[in-house]
């Protein structure tokens, strides 16, 4: 197990390096010019100076290695500096956004909480809905509950999140006026009233994402439960005279959760991707919205770093899912 973990970690490093190179080369091959917004009246020599100031005149591999160095050495040092008050980085150049001239990591740190609250709570809610639905659907296979559940999960799976979001806005924000349609990120939670306000504005984005996740996870949960309900050990448990509740909720559920947990782990990075759209619908100023803004503004360092963070999430959670599978299921041993 330890060897396997180590090997996987070692494979993850070149994978991430190749991915970062792919993203970098894609950005490089693109004809977009970060100085495209600069007015034509600016003389060419000034433009050349601006280019040098942005570091754009260096060869691509120089800039790539510079980015790697800033990302993997200087940024962690800055992080340690801010956490412990040390001075490791000694003012070294960080990854700077073209657009706002701020360090990219500072902007990400500003926006991460919004994404995490919405995405995180949506995922938790989604899992909490999906697991019981999956259990009941499988236990009462082909009952009306199962048929309804299967249909709803098919719908939840098929209807794109931007349409669910917009439909919820029409119903609950425009017609009923229960919830605000725009997520107000300046809201500070200080007392009970502002907390209620925060909850109210979170309801719709969380519902959209949670429904979509619940649809996928409940399908997995159902089929995993069905696989286990037919096993011999279930008959043994029943023959021992255990109550139905113990059989289903202890014996079957625990075994059925093994593959579902890995699916849940694998879904985490996806939901960050899905949040790009939901954030756009509800105007949440999270990471996804920042990505779209930066793409439109040709802000190469920001786009590069954000996309790379998404890739890191995927690789990390793939690894976590595989390891969890090995830990939870004693039949699987990586040797």
């Amino acid at each position, binding site marked *: 197990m330890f060897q396997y973990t180590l090997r996987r970690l070692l494979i993850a490093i070149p994978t991430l390096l190749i991915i970062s190179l792919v993203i970098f080369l894609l950005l490089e091959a693109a004809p977009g010019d970060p100085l495209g917004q600069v007015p034509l009246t600016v003389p060419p020599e000034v433009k050349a100076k601006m280019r040098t100031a942005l570091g754009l005149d260096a060869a691509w591999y120089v800039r790539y290695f510079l980015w790697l160095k800033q990302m993997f050495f200087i940024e962690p040092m800055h992080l340690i500096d801010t956490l412990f008050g040390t001075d490791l980085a000694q003012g070294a150049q960080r990854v700077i956004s073209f657009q706002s001239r701020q360090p990219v990591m500072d902007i990400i740190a500003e926006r991460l909480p919004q994404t995490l609250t919405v995405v995180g709570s949506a995922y938790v809610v989604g899992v909490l809905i999906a697991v019981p639905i999956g259990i009941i659907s499988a236990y009462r296979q082909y009952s009306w509950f199962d048929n309804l559940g299967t249909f709803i999960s098919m719908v939840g799976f*098929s209807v794109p999140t931007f349409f669910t979001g*917009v439909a919820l806005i029409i119903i609950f924000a425009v017609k009923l006026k229960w919830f605000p349609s725009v997520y107000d990120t300046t809201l500070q939670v200080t007392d009970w009233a502002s907390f209620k306000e925060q909850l109210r504005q979170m309801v719709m984005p969380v519902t959209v994402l949670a429904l979509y996740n619940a649809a996928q996870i409940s399908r997995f949960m159902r089929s995993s439960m069905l696989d286990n309900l037919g096993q011999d050990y279930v008959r043994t448990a029943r023959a021992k005279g255990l109550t139905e509740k113990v059989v289903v909720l202890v014996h079957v559920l625990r075994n059925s959760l093994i593959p579902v947990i890995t699916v849940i782990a694998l879904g985490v*990075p996806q939901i960050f991707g899905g949040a790009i759209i939901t954030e756009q619908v509800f105007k949440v100023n999270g990471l996804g919205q920042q990505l779209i803004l930066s793409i439109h503004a040709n802000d190469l360092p920001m*786009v590069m770093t954000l996309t790379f963070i998404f890739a890191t999430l995927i690789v990390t959670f793939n690894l976590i899912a595989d390891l969890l599978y090995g830990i939870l299921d004693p039949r699987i041993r990586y040797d």
Partner: protein
Amino acid sequence: MTETTTAIRPPRNQWWDVWDQFKTHKGALVGLTIFITILLGITIGPWLWDMAPTYVDLRARNKGFSMAHPLGTDQLGRDLLARMMAGGKVSLSVGLTAMALAVSLGTTIGVLAGYFKKLESPLMRLTDLFLALPLLPLLLLMVTLFREPLSQRFGPEGGIFLLIVTAIGATSWMQTARIVRGEVLAIKEREFVLAARSIGTPARRMVLRHILPNVMSPIMVSATLGIATAIITESALSFLGLGFPPDFPTWGRLLFDAVDQIQLYPMRVVLPGIAISLTVLSVNYIGDGLRDALDPRIRGR
């Protein structure tokens, strides 16, 4: 008893068995009906309702449902029924073409990786690498970065179509490749392959005549589901404002254009949204039914 019936019954194509099994899946049948209706609506519809989707009539702006405009008009007085049909045509052709690209890429890579031992490790590494890419951000990147040069070279419509189809196809072949490789690995060990090899069948014919027909089922299922994903991806790109140009409607684009006036004219958002959802839902149900119908363990039971 069974022997006599099989003797009397004329030889039957296996696809009839598949169809018989498919018919028992109610959801799939309804899905197929809806999908065919939508297909007919967007192909034959424009002949019956021959109003140009780009015809601007400023005097008939923002109209509701009426006889002259069954689905109303938009902020420039363009007929929404005509726009929905034109949009559906683009959305579905993007979905179908992107799926075809993704499936052929995935099948090629899957078969090569499964059949040729030497290619297996590098090709599967490549697949894993693609699976680790953040797809939506990359799609957004590709579309924004390359739309200008491509639309200059191939015209605004052709360029963007090419770009979006290639981008979606190039980022969604991995699942197919994995499934196909697994199937090929299993089939490669079967006796008929050994028999074919022992009479000296060359690798090319081996793959085309013996392996490929036997992996058709999973390919067809993933092709069906691929249409659904491609349609959703295209409309998501359009929704983020990174799809087709404004005067070239797709369902996602229609939805995106209507969001600004959602307070006043909610129907304009709902209609394309329902069209997308209904298409994807029906395609997913067809895929579900097809999976059951193509599984010989379920079929004939």
